């Protein structure tokens, strides 16, 4: 029987300090066979294990294409907030850690074919969305218009600015950025990300929205999109809960009847709409 709990060894190849508290670790599985077998879909996550400390679920920023190329670096962008992540972000190149995955259901790329795709993220919610944007760009002709909307609390929190500027230059691609608190060099919207949604080129008949970020932000965005004419079924969002096993056994990630780790983390909005925003779930 395959043991779904056993991690594989990985090495930190590169460490990128994105902001004072956000670090991207670029990892490579040390076993070449495991490297060849590894494949993930945008929106899935890995469990990263720091020796002697513990495991945490972190979304995979790399797109599937990087695995097919066998460059095979697993990029994980991590914010230092808890016991494990505060130690993880200190790892330097050459350090070893454990990786198991990928887990969960990713973004509905099949349903998005032929449609306009609107990616609306907040804070570090942009990380699980980057892989899907890369994938949309790689197979550009299979999709309609693409919009990428990202909101941050403070202008200094915006990471991957060059990436957004690059996407903004692509044909049929709209990039909208918002910061609650701007600074001198901020030339985009000041305010909440929901304040940008009116600017979307929204063809309600052929659109699909993918949301990732803090729950109040996702809820407000989803409800605004519905006001603007989208059906709830056209909206997908990525949820987050305490996860320790990642295979639906440990019970921590339950959101109503859903196990976020295996039934999600990406959910169709109607499946979570009722409980989202109910305190204590």
């Amino acid at each position, binding site marked *: 029987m395959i043991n779904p709990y056993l991690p594989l060894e990985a090495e930190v190849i590169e460490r990128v300090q994105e902001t004072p508290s956000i670090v991207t670790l670029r990892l490579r599985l040390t076993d070449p066979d495991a490297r060849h077998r590894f494949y993930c879909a945008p929106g899935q996550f890995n469990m990263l294990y720091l020796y*002697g400390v513990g495991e945490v679920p972190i979304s995979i920023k790399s797109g599937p294409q990087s695995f097919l190329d066998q460059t095979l670096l697993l990029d994980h962008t991590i914010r230092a907030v808890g016991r494990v992540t505060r130690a993880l972000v200190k790892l330097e190149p050459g350090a070893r*850690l*454990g990786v198991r995955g990928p887990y969960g259901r990713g973004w509905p790329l099949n349903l998005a074919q032929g449609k306009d795709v609107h990616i609306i993220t907040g804070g570090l919610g942009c990380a699980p969305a980057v892989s899907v944007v890369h994938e949309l760009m790689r197979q550009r002709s299979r999709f309609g218009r693409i919009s990428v909307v990202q909101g941050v609390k403070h202008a200094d929190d915006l990471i991957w600015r060059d990436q957004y500027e690059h996407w903004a230059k692509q044909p049929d691609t709209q990039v909208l950025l918002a910061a609650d608190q701007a600074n001198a060099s901020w030339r985009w919207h000041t305010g909440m990300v929901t304040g940008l949604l009116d600017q979307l080129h929204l063809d309600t008949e052929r659109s699909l929205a993918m949301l990732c970020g803090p729950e109040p932000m996702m809820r407000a965005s989803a409800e605004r999109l519905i006001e603007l004419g989208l059906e709830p079924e056209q909206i997908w969002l990525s949820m*987050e*809960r305490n996860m320790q096993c990642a295979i639906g*056994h440990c019970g*921590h990630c339950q959101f109503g009847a859903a196990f976020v780790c295996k039934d999600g983390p990406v959910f169709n909005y109607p499946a979570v709409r009722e409980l989202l925003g109910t305190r*204590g779930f």
Partner: protein
Amino acid sequence: METPGFLPMARLQTLIDTLIDDGFRCVAPQVRDGAILYDTLDKVKQLPKGVTQEQSNGRYRLHQTDSTRNFAWANGPQAIKPLTFAPREELWYSEVKSDGSLKFYQAPTETEPVAILGVRACDLAALALQDQHFQHSFPDPYYDARRKRLLLIAVHCTHPAETCFCASTGDGPEARSGYDLSLYETDLGYFVTAGSLAGEMLLHRLPLEAGDAALFAAARGETGAAADAQQRQLPEGDLQAMLFGNLNHPQWQAVAERCLSCGNCTQVCPTCFCHSENSVPSISGQSTAHERQWDSCFSPGHSYIHGITLRKDTASRYRQWLTHKFGSWHEQYGRSGCVGCGRCISWCPVGIDPTEELAVICKDSAGDSA
């Protein structure tokens, strides 16, 4: 039902000896520290002969009587869950080598054959639910190995506690499936039936006598009477809809004012599956074990996520436990997560009874869900 073969009281030891000869460790109920627990046993005299029980809200007491019966009680606090889903166990361990590389090794799984004598119908139903949870979609190698080594000998329940409501959940007091062998206890001995091929083979090696039809009818009648004697029950109707339709009911706050958030209910529950995973480094620092341990939705860490606790107060934790056990389980596993064993009532230090809480919470919406 045809009258099954009869094993006289004096020959029960033969069953235990046969199991031990076949290489099983025999586990059976015994009195430990004033409660009935399952532990290794090789002699009939270790069984709780003549012991009866008194259970009520927040109360559990044993009484010694002159009865010849070994199973004249309902249940103890621990069920058989620890034999399949261990309270604490190592999943894997890791070593750091001199060059800094890490090696990961799977911890050995339990394979020793275990025969459990005296399994209750409620606990068999709970086991079937845990099987669904741990053996489907992502089979759990540790649970699976512990589960596959089990031989289950049920004893149909004739002495329900005041806290029992298995008749209402449809899980007892008579065991209907999930066992290898089953025993109907009478003052004189046991009527023995098989529920599997392994049980059938075992049955044929026992010194059974022809059973008396009238005595067997009386024995079965006792399980029927055990069902009729139960006073508590779950509300009728679609509990999932009623619970999730009442998330702001004032009763959540009312029960939170009594609940200590101690988690006893979840620890004695035979279906609760939540567990935490922890890294336990060795003193040398050269290796570290990765362990799992039973957790409870009443603990603050259960809903921890990136620096915050989602369920800060007892009301939200109690609501999580009740909406999951009696609500979400239906969607997850096709039925309620409660098998009516009543342990959470007896072992709650303040005597909270979920059936009473459910009755209050669901009262206002009864009938809406049809």
